[in-house]
């Protein structure tokens, strides 16, 4: 137990930057990590993978001193600290980029760095121009091309993330930990991130990166560490030893069947249309493209996939169909009736349902109970507007649908915040996929979900389509779109830049996403 890992005299290639021995974390009775022993070599990119709840984030937080280990030991740069905190981790040259960003949204880039990330007193007077020049120089050193005058909340997720990486690297960081950095990025953005990480690696920085997707691991990592239910299944093994299938097997313990759409059951051209958008436009917002005269139809019994680099009008599309934002021109028809100006409630009563982009803020109220979250849909959109309701009956119904959708929970009075991501998504499906559904708008329905939960979502969408409902699937995951979509539409700057039917050609679709029109 006592530091069986070697303690090298000098830090250099081949020695271990960070290693753990029998590391365990208990949260009460729950063992989040069990006896994890792993060593990360200096100057390499180390992936940590596993399903949701496997302990990846906990593991990275232990390294960073954010979570205390219950037992086991940690060795950093050959040293063997008795106690470990964020401060000590930073002093030892570790830093972390979290899933949730820490930059103040209403500050400019320069202000954010100057006042929130360095030791400068925020009480001293300063000149904006001098500040901007200073940070422009520093950002340039890190090869980040972002104006120091830009407001943080006007930047894309990718841009803020690159700023977070700069922040982490500023303090002469030797070991950079990234917690699921690709979860919120579109594929081309992930590619650019990976290029940056490779550049950092060449400079000798050790990178520990928590990832979800097998393909990304194979693309970027030198070694892979697989966690399953808190146990270390593979400990910093060379990535070359794996292919996609064998690595997937290690992660979930059995072969995951990713549904491949081999035959396409398409409705004939004469069949009715459930949703029609005619020359639809929306108002421009800061960070997202608006829709510019978009035409689109969805027929019953088909899945229409929407691909595109993030921020090219996907959010505007979903929100305008749901009635959350107004169309500036054009029309929306649902089963031949014009719904351009009707309320969200009226649209839902006609049979439109939605899986929102952000399940924890748009999909559920995390500080409300399970039964209230489940009952919300029927409570709000019931055609009968009786004044009084029976909580007992609502709870009984909630219990029924939660059971049916196999949501794992302890009590109906539990807050939704206590559920895992996959279970929250199941809850949302249980609420949205009621008998009145005719059209489902699924916005990034598998984002951040593990392999098992993703398969559940895919099966559900496919079953829905086969039962005759229309599905509009917005996703950043091309594999998912290829596997599920009957037709695929690519958005670029709020316009359709490509329209495809299977079998899909990755390079053609990719070109429509990022190429010039």
């Amino acid at each position, binding site marked *: 137990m006592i530091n069986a890992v070697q303690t090298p005299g000098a830090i250099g290639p081949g020695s271990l930057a960070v290693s753990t021995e029998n590391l365990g974390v208990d949260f009460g009775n729950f063992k989040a990590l069990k006896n994890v022993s792993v060593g990360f070599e200096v100057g390499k990119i180390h992936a940590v993978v596993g399903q949701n709840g496997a302990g990846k984030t906990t593991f990275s937080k232990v390294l960073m001193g954010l979570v205390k280990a219950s037992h086991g030991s940690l060795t950093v740069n050959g040293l063997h600290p008795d106690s470990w905190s964020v401060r000590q981790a930073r002093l030892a040259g570790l830093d972390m980029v979290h899933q949730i960003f820490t930059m103040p949204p209403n500050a400019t880039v320069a202000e954010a760095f100057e006042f929130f990330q360095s030791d400068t007193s925020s009480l001293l007077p300063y000149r904006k121009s001098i500040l901007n020049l200073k940070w422009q120089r520093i950002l340039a050193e890190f090869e980040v091309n972002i104006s120091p005058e830009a407001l943080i909340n006007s930047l894309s997720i990718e841009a803020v993330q690159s700023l977070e990486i700069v922040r982490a690297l500023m303090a002469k960081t030797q070991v950079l930990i990234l917690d699921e950095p690709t979860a919120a990025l579109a594929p081309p953005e992930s590619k650019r991130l990976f290029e940056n990480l490779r550049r950092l690696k060449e400079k000798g920085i050790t990178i520990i990166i928590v990832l979800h997707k097998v393909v990304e691991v194979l693309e970027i990592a030198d070694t892979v560490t697989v966690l399953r239910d808190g146990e270390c299944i593979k400990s910093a093994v060379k990535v070359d030893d794996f292919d996609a299938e064998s690595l997937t097997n290690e992660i979930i313990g059995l072969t995951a069947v990713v549904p491949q759409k081999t035959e396409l059951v398409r409705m004939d051209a004469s069949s009715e249309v459930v949703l029609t958008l005619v020359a639809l436009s929306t108002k421009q917002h800061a960070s997202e493209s608006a829709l510019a005269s978009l035409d689109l139809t969805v027929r019953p019994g088909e899945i229409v996939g929407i691909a595109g680099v993030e921020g090219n009008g996907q959010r505007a599309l979903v929100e305008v169909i749901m009635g959350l934002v107004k169309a500036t021109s054009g029309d929306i028809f649902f089963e031949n009736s014009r719904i351009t100006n009707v*309320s*969200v409630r009226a649209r839902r009563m006609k049979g439109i349902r939605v899986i929102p982009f952000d399940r924890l803020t*748009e*999909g559920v*109220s995390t500080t*409300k109970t399970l039964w*209230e979250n489940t009952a*919300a849909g029927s409570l*709000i959109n019931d055609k009968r507007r009786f004044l009084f309701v029976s909580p007992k009956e609502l709870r009984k119904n909630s219990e029924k649908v939660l059971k049916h959708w196999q949501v794992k929970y302890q009590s109906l009075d539990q807050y939704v915040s206590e559920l895992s991501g996959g279970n929250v998504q199941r809850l949302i499906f249980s609420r949205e996929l009621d008998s009145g559904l005719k059209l489902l708008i699924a916005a990034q329905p598998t984002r951040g979900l593990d392999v098992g939960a993703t398969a559940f979502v895919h099966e559900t969408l496919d079953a829905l389509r086969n039962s005759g409902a229309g599905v509009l699937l917005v996703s950043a995951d091309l594999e998912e779109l290829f596997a599920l979509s009957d037709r695929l539409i690519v958005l670029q700057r709020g316009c359709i830049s490509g329209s495809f039917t299977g079998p899909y050609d990755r390079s053609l679709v990719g070109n429509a996403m990022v190429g010039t029109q």
Partner: protein
Amino acid sequence: MRTRLFYIIGSLATVAALLFVSGYSLIEVGNGAIKGAFTAPDAWHATLRWSTAYILIGAGVIISVRAGFFNLGAQGQFYLGSLGAVSVSLYWSNGPRYLVIAMSLVAGIVGGALWAYVPGWLRVKHDANEVITTLMTNFLAILVLRSLSRGVLQDDAGSGEASSSRTIDPSLRISNGSGFSITTLAISTFVLITLWLILTRTRFGIISGIVGRNPLMARWQGVDVGDVGIKVFLLSGASAGLAGAVEVLGANGRVSSGFEADLGMTAILVAIVSGLGAIGLALAAIFFGAMQAALLYIPIVSDVPPSSLQLMSGMIALFVTAKFAINLRHIRKQGLHKSGESL
């Protein structure tokens, strides 16, 4: 619940320590307080008289805060309600007695609701921060009350200096000067039951609770959040207005410049201590009612300054709002809404 109890006990202990250090006899003060609130003749009447006012105003505060709209305008809505009631009672004093009483109550409800509608509308249509607008409408209401009670409503029998209205006809009073009667008790019970039904047994109650926690999710589910906002402002104004009417028809019998000036803010405190539920409201209202009754009684039996008991409600307010503010920050951090609240 346990933490709120802790605040109350903590505040009691602190005030007791202060009194002890200042050389007062704790036993004397404690005796005085218990006598004033519970054991002296008619002490229960005094306690329940204040509880009634807190329940009526607090019910509306609970409805609005639960829905995420922080209506601090109870005092102003209370004044407008009292003006509505006193106007009907004075200018229609020869009408059928019960009808006039009923219409005075209705006028109070309408006056309070209309006064609350203004900041509600500003909030929903123009995104004006309701904390600021409701506080400002309070000051406006004080001026309206002063000008009317010195103007058309002024009692000419009194000295020209006094700014209070004529007293309503005794036959229209629903209680004597003590402010307690079966009628006022019935009104507060009715309001409590209505509040309980709204919060736990109606669509509106459950949905507005979700809106208060996460308006974004509610919008995606098809809730018209602005519509909910207008309704909760109207409801909370109506209940504060009803309280104003009950004060006019009951304890006061008239309005005067700046009367019952602490009632609105204390009732907001009661609502927050109640944990935003009907049963909690009943308990908190009785507790604060007892404190108010004790406060008025203590100077009779002891030389302890009454402000020492006021200090106590101030301390409870400090404890509770500190926790409230922390929760508020937590909710806002999630980036949900400008006025998301929770307890």
